[in-house]
């Protein structure tokens, strides 16, 4: 401990590293820690100004400021922004690993200034470019042209309007590896153009890009897609990834509606799969996905984390239901699965529980350690109890031997007996060391749920020994919903 060693009677001052000369204030010496604290409590401008006090102060500031190869610009229409730009432009020719431009607000003069900032990023051969609009600025829906460097390795855009093919590009992005678009108003042609010109692209993430209707990834010279994330692009109809000879997609994430064409080559390299298809009226709409799963399921032996919605589970289980024996041969998949997350969009119905049973039964080599069942939050609309549905499947005997933790979110005991049934099933099957966590929106009283004596005693025993843990979270639902 530095303080104690400094407590010697010889009155020696606390020593900084030998090569560091710290400033002296009125012949008193302070530790670097004290200077750091003083500088970090100053407004940036005042802190920067201390660098001109003396060489020792300059060096102190130099040790504190962030590494020079990364630049963050917070843009607001203001005079200081122009000053900052001019200051930057005097330092051309340096290399930037990262350039991030956060646009808080815009006015009519902003287009030109923003372009100059981004031209500066090109001149500094920025590798990682991030441009994001705050919601205030995004409301004004600014459209501005900007150049992109061919040295770019990663491009992240958030809330940008790319209506027109504004990338005035002819040369390929020979280094672009990752493209990440969040709430970007990009159209098919622009995306397609960028992808075509990026032969090394490995990571594509498209979230909330509602103007896209298709995502097409043509073959590229050295392109080796490892991660593809497509989420909530509401108007998407087609996803076509042309296979590469040694494709190695490791992570695929789809969340959205049904598609008319879905072509994605996957093989045993896939380790993380997230599949959530929403607002589906009948399974017929999911024919495209069903076909994909039929072809791909046998290859999913290395998936370790699987997240699927109840619709997808229905597809997977329908393929795995033992009706057609010919299919059984391909059922030995998901053998590496360690984490299963199930997203239930309505409430847990008999068919969902059936599907879970089928899924667990056909996991031949279960390594599952974590199970999450995410139920929907209570909404204004009350769901009817699933009185018509009846359980078809028997509980699986094996499949949960290695489970360490199971969690049910938004456990809504009041109406839905299949949720309770799932809990009791889990309690019966898992090892005593596995913890089961129920996160409920309201106080849970097991005695009042009309449980059978045997079931109640299973639950009470689990509660008593700490295996079952119930956590109540406050719900923002109006109180009236319950009655």
């Amino acid at each position, binding site marked *: 401990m530095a*303080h104690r060693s400094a407590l010697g009677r010889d009155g020696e*001052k606390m020593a900084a590293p030998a090569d560091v000369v710290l400033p002296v204030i*009125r012949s008193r010496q302070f530790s670097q820690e*004290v200077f750091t604290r003083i500088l970090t409590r100053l407004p940036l401008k005042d802190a920067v100004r*201390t660098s001109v006090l003396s*060489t020792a102060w300059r060096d102190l500031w130099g040790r504190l400021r962030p590494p020079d190869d990364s630049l963050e610009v917070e843009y607001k229409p203001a005079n200081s922004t122009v000053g900052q730009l001019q200051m930057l432009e005097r330092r051309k020719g340096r290399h930037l690993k990262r350039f991030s431009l956060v646009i808080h607000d815009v006015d009519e003069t902003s287009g030109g200034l923003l372009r100059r900032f981004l031209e500066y990023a090109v001149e500094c051969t920025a590798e990682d470019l991030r441009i994001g609009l705050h919601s205030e600025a995004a409301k004004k829906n600014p459209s501005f042209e900007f150049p992109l460097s061919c040295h770019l390795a990663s491009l992240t855009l958030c809330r940008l309007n790319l209506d027109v093919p504004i990338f005035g590009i002819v040369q390929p992005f020979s280094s672009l590896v990752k493209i990440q678009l969040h709430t970007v108003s990009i159209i098919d042609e622009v995306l397609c153009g960028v992808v075509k010109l990026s032969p090394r692209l490995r990571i594509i993430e498209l979230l909330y890009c509602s103007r896209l209707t298709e995502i097409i990834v043509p073959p590229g010279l050295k392109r080796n897609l490892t991660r593809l994330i497509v989420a909530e692009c509401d108007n998407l109809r087609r996803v076509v990834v042309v296979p590469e000879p040694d494709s190695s997609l490791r992570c695929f994430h789809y969340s959205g509606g049904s598609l008319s064409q879905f072509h994605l080559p996957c093989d045993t390299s896939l380790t993380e799969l997230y599949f959530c298809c929403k607002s589906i009226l009948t399974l017929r709409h999911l024919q495209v996905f069903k076909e994909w799963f039929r072809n791909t399921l046998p290859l999913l032996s290395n998936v370790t984390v699987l997240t699927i919605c109840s619709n997808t589970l229905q597809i997977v289980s329908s393929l795995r239901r033992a009706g057609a024996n010919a299919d059984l041969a391909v059922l030995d998949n998901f053998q590496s699965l360690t984490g299963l997350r199930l997203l239930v969009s309505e409430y847990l119905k008999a068919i969902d529980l059936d599907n879970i049973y089928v899924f667990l039964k056909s996991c031949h080599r279960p390594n599952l350690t974590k199970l999450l069942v995410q139920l929907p939050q209570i909404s204004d609309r009350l769901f009817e109890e699933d009185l018509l549905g009846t359980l078809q499947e028997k509980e699986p005997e094996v499949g949960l031997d290695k489970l360490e933790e199971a969690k049910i979110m938004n456990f809504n005991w009041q109406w839905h007996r299949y949720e309770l049934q799932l809990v009791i099933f889990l309690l019966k099957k898992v090892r005593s060391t596995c913890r089961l966590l129920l996160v409920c929106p309201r106080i849970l009283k097991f005695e009042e749920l009309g449980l059978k004596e045997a079931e109640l005693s299973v639950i009470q025993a689990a509660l008593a020994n700490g295996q079952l843990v119930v956590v109540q979270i406050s719900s923002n639902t109006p109180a009236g919903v319950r009655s």
Partner: protein
Amino acid sequence: MAAATDDAGDSNEMIRVVSSDGEHFEMPEAAANLSLVLRHMIEDDCADAAGIPLAVVAAKPLAKIVDYCTKHAAKSSGLTIEEAEELKRFDAEFIEVDTDMLYDLLVAADFMGVEGLSKLAVQRTADLIKGKTPEQNRETFGIVNDFTPEEEEEICKENEWAFQITKPPSRLC
């Protein structure tokens, strides 16, 4: 064996400390515990009748620190809003000192590891720097400008935006 005679935590044990210029002070153990250094010494049974020597803290700042710790130790747990307010007022008055005393407190609080006081003195020092020109700050802190005029100009130019407005209030950005 000054420490650990009482588990209840409000032991009336007095801890003796000796300033660099040989003056003796006393404070309750709870107050001494606010200093990381003193706490470790007490835990290691180094607090004896002769007092803990503090080699770099002179009597004047030490008297202030003893005051500070005694006041804060007395009010350490379960503060009501009024008491918290009162402590805040105490802090504000406590740190209204001349710059010489401020720097002594800054060194001493850092050295003795009195976190609350260290924060207070750091904030006060930062307040002194804030909104001043470099020349004013050099004067306040007795800093000798060892730049060549060219070097100084270069730094100002590099961060022109920070040096443009020199009159307080200067925080436009």
